[in-house]
């Protein structure tokens, strides 16, 4: 497991090894730790804007002894076949899941890029700039990655967050649906139905998803 302190130190060390500025986005457990929702995570999830940035990052973590590892047993078979699956690197207990441009079928919408919760810049000779997606986007991405504990993380966010913007989440899901993610609505609907056993969610949000699904 990676603690918040480990994560910060790791980013600091990586920023010393990179040879050009890199910009990426944090989601999943990494973003949750930046938020203060939890203290440790199994993996560091990062999304890069382009392949050269990911390559540069991989070069840096390889120098630190990280090796590529298999996605098997981490993601469901259907996700493993997706061409936008991540590259995974591991060293002892530390693991990186590195995506480019998309997280499986999910694109980064302009709104997601604009409405960041935080920006952390690790400045050395070059800068590693990490944008942290807002909580609604973290939930949205947790709903699609469907790994073990993802649902528990969603519950943690909702329990701790008084001002969770459900409309934002639904709007983003519909945006994904309209921009080619055929699974966005299905995954979200599945997650909300499961969530309803533990948390109150207004029916109108599910209805908006059904209506959008019928549109196509």
């Amino acid at each position, binding site marked *: 497991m990676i603690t*918040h302190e480990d994560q*910060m130190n790791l*980013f*600091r060390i990586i*920023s010393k090894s990179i040879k050009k500025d890199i910009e990426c986005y944090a989601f999943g457990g990494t973003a949750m730790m*930046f*938020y*203060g*929702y939890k*203290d440790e995570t199994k993996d560091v999830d990062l999304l890069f804007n382009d392949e050269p940035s990911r390559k540069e990052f991989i070069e840096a973590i390889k120098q630190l002894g990280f090796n590529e590892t298999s996605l098997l047993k981490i993601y469901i078979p259907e996700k493993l076949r997706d061409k936008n699956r991540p590259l995974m690197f591991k060293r002892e207990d530390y693991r990186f899941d590195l995506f480019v441009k998309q997280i499986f079928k999910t694109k980064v919408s302009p709104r997601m890029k604009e409405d*960041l*919760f*935080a*920006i*952390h*810049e*690790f*400045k*050395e000779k070059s*800068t590693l700039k990490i944008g*942290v997606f807002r909580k609604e986007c973290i939930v949205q991405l947790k709903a699609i990655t469907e790994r073990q504990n993802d649902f528990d993380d969603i519950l943690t966010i909702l*329990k*701790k*967050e*008084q001002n969770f913007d459900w409309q934002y989440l639904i709007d983003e899901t519909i945006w994904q649906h309209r921009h080619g993610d055929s699974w966005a609505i299905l995954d979200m609907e599945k997650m909300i139905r499961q969530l309803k056993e533990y948390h109150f969610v207004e029916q109108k949000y599910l209805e908006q998803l059904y209506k959008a699904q019928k549109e196509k």
Partner: protein
Amino acid sequence: MENIELLKKLQGLQTIETASEALNLSRQATLNLLSRLKKEGYVTTTGGGTQKRLYKITVRKQRKRDPGMFDILNKYSPMKLNPWYDHQVHGIYTPEDVLIDAIKTKSFRAILASLRLFNHITDWKKLYSLAKQNDCWQEIGALYDLAKKNFKVKRMPKQYAPARFKGKKYILRKYENNDFKDIGEKWNVGIPFRKGDLIKVET
């Protein structure tokens, strides 16, 4: 009571009296509880001694922060900004970097507040090279002249004086006012500020 429920009840600013009243606990029991929550990272305190101690309680853990653009702008500018995202820089972050970042936000208030940074610029070479990298030297020059006209600033070395600039630049997207036309023409930059705006960062 589970931690989350407890924190939800207490979240916000509390004194020991208001917290014990909210939880219906004795003063000592509340102190013990707040001390535990502080160790876990949910509580930070201010005051103490002659001042009343205030407890800031959140449901999320409060992480240690490194200063970012908004922190430095708020430190030097009398006009304070309410950050619209949490910006932190882990490493060396100087007023030269902040000035460039403020211009890149294209935010009226952030750029206005950044005028106060010109009194803290010590490395003009660094500022010039950063501005050239980010293609914003004209904007920096215009903002410097604007700041010089209104407040005390560190002098810009002569070698960075304006040359002839080909293209017109805008501090805010294609928006300008005529209150500082002379400076705008000198640097070929559209300045969005009016004289009244500058008063906000004067004192």
